[in-house]
């Protein structure tokens, strides 16, 4: 009786989440500390609060990309021997890593969002409800915008995986090859996306929603292509 | 038990059992360790132990009863013949080695006698 794929995926995902835990803790603690500082020291300065929140949001978005470099670390720590001897293919290995990194992003941004909301509520307890009500019609777009940021991250992570794997195909200058591949893939996929943009036409009335939806679709497509390439190369070319 | 790595190990296992039987440490009807137990005891590949046990069965030294174990089946007559066999093979070895050193059969008989006398003297 074979082990179910979902069970294996869950085990890999759990392992990745455990490895990425420090980064989640960093985002959470920095956000809370900055939130407290802003609330007690700069309570009246709305712009300062906004800047602080954008900064932690940047941290929450950027850290998963740094964490994605752990893939290459598997080679340095020899744990790749364990990964590659498991009866799973590259799809599982890279898929579970991607899922964990996206979870890291979602958790991080969720923490920032909650702290931001609390701050807003703490600073303007009277107007909070009013502004919340005012924002209601835009939640569709906000959701699409958020989804877009998730997919943009997935796109960058795919390029990161792809270039790290290419880097591991050579025995020397692995880092340099990774960097060149990263930049090259970024450029090529950028070209591909502008080509894709030429194929779509958008019209009124809900232009912004359409724009977002098309962007999400397009970046998902490009990310999926790069990820598939990464999986194929992992399965067919990587050797120890 | 230490094996001589230059000799087949299954043979040495058989010899070990033969010696035990000759010395009376194992008697007819005694149970000997299972192949697995023995392999773990002497830290030898179980296939080698299996080969030794199989040969001992063919030689009618032991018999394996399904589910109960392996037992010594050598009686008095068999014991004598095992003893004789072993002595013969040791003698053969001794004589060939001595011959290869240039001792003629008479010389080596004399040498052996002399050796035994001196050994007796030392023992006393």
């Amino acid at each position, binding site marked *: 009786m*074979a082990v179910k794929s979902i069970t294996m995926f869950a085990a890999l995902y759990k392992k990745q989440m455990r490895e990425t835990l420090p980064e989640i803790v960093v985002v959470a603690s920095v956000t809370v500390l900055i939130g407290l500082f802003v609330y007690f020291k700069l309570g009246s300065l709305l712009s300062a609060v906004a800047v602080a929140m954008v900064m932690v949001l940047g941290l929450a978005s950027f850290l998963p990309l740094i964490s994605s470099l752990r893939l290459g670390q598997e080679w340095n720590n020899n*744990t790749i*021997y364990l990964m590659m001897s498991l009866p799973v293919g590259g799809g599982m290995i890279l898929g579970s890593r991607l899922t964990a990194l996206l979870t890291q992003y979602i958790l991080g941004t969720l923490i920032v969002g909650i702290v931001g909301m609390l701050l807003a509520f703490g600073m303007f307890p009277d107007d909070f409800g009013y502004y919340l009500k005012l924002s209601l019609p835009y939640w569709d777009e906000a959701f699409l915008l958020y989804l877009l940021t998730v997919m943009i991250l997935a796109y960058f992570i795919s390029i990161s995986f792809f270039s790290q794997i290419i880097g591991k195909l050579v025995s020397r200058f692995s880092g340099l090859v990774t960097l060149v591949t990263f930049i090259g893939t970024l450029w090529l996929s950028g070209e591909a996306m502008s080509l894709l943009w030429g194929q779509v036409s958008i019209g009124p009335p809900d232009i912004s929603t359409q724009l977002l939806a098309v962007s999400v679709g397009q970046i998902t497509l490009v990310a999926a292509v790069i990820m598939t390439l990464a999986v194929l190369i992992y399965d067919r070319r990587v*050797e120890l | 038990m230490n094996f001589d*790595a*230059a000799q087949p190990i299954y043979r040495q296992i058989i010899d070990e059992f033969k010696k035990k039987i000759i010395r009376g440490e194992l008697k007819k009807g005694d149970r000997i360790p299972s192949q697995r137990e023995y392999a773990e005891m002497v830290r030898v590949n179980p296939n080698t132990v*299996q080969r030794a046990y199989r040969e001992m069965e063919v030689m009618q030294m032991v018999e394996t009863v399904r589910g109960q174990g392996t037992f010594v089946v050598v009686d008095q007559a068999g014991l004598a013949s095992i003893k004789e066999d072993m002595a013969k093979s040791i003698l053969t070895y001794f004589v060939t080695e001595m011959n290869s050193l240039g001792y003629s059969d008479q010389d080596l008989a004399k040498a052996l006698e002399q050796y035994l006398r001196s050994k007796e003297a030392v023992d006393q």
Partner: protein
Amino acid sequence: MIEFKQVKKYFGTVRALDNFQAELPSGRVIGLFGPNGAGKSTALKMIAGLNRPNRGQVLVDGLDPRKTRDRVAYLPEIDHLYPWMTVGKAANFIGTFYSDWDQEKYLGLLSYLCLDENMKIGKISKGQRAKVKLLLTLSRRSSYLLLDEPLSGIDLLTREEIINSVIRDYREGEQTIIISTHEIGEIEGLVDEVIFIQEGKIVLTGNAEDLREERNMSLVEIMKEAMRSGR
């Protein structure tokens, strides 16, 4: 059965395996012997599906090794476990992937090897780490067991424990064990088939007992002689 069919493997300009041709019979304990750099690790990795021949073919039960990973348990020479995991966590993680994982066997070996589930892999001694690697490899009832230099750099007492565990674990007829080492003396009594390799080529192969019988020499001596004439 494991088959190597005219396998060639290069790493850059280095020839790791050169027209390597072998059939490894099932149900035996096979010693893969040779000096450092002879191609032993490369051959084992190929069976485990971690690298591929440049020419020729390797088949495990007639299949591509990448498809047979679930019936092969591989113990690499290097430390391949996550240092942040405890023994228990690592067992749990690895155990998830194999239907032949045997929890009872695992617990038995754990106490036999004097290991503790709460030991953190990054914080234990080299000998203990070697035992943990062995524990996690032997806790499966895999058809093929590949041990790459399981004794190198390990103290004497631990070596004995490792050899004993392998003997205890071995299931006659069902399991094929392949052990690579350059320290043959340690496992003279453990193997029943031997393959001596040098510079990626097989210089001698046969049944250990038959070889001893024919030549009145130990495997160590036989290997020395084979290496000399192989040159």
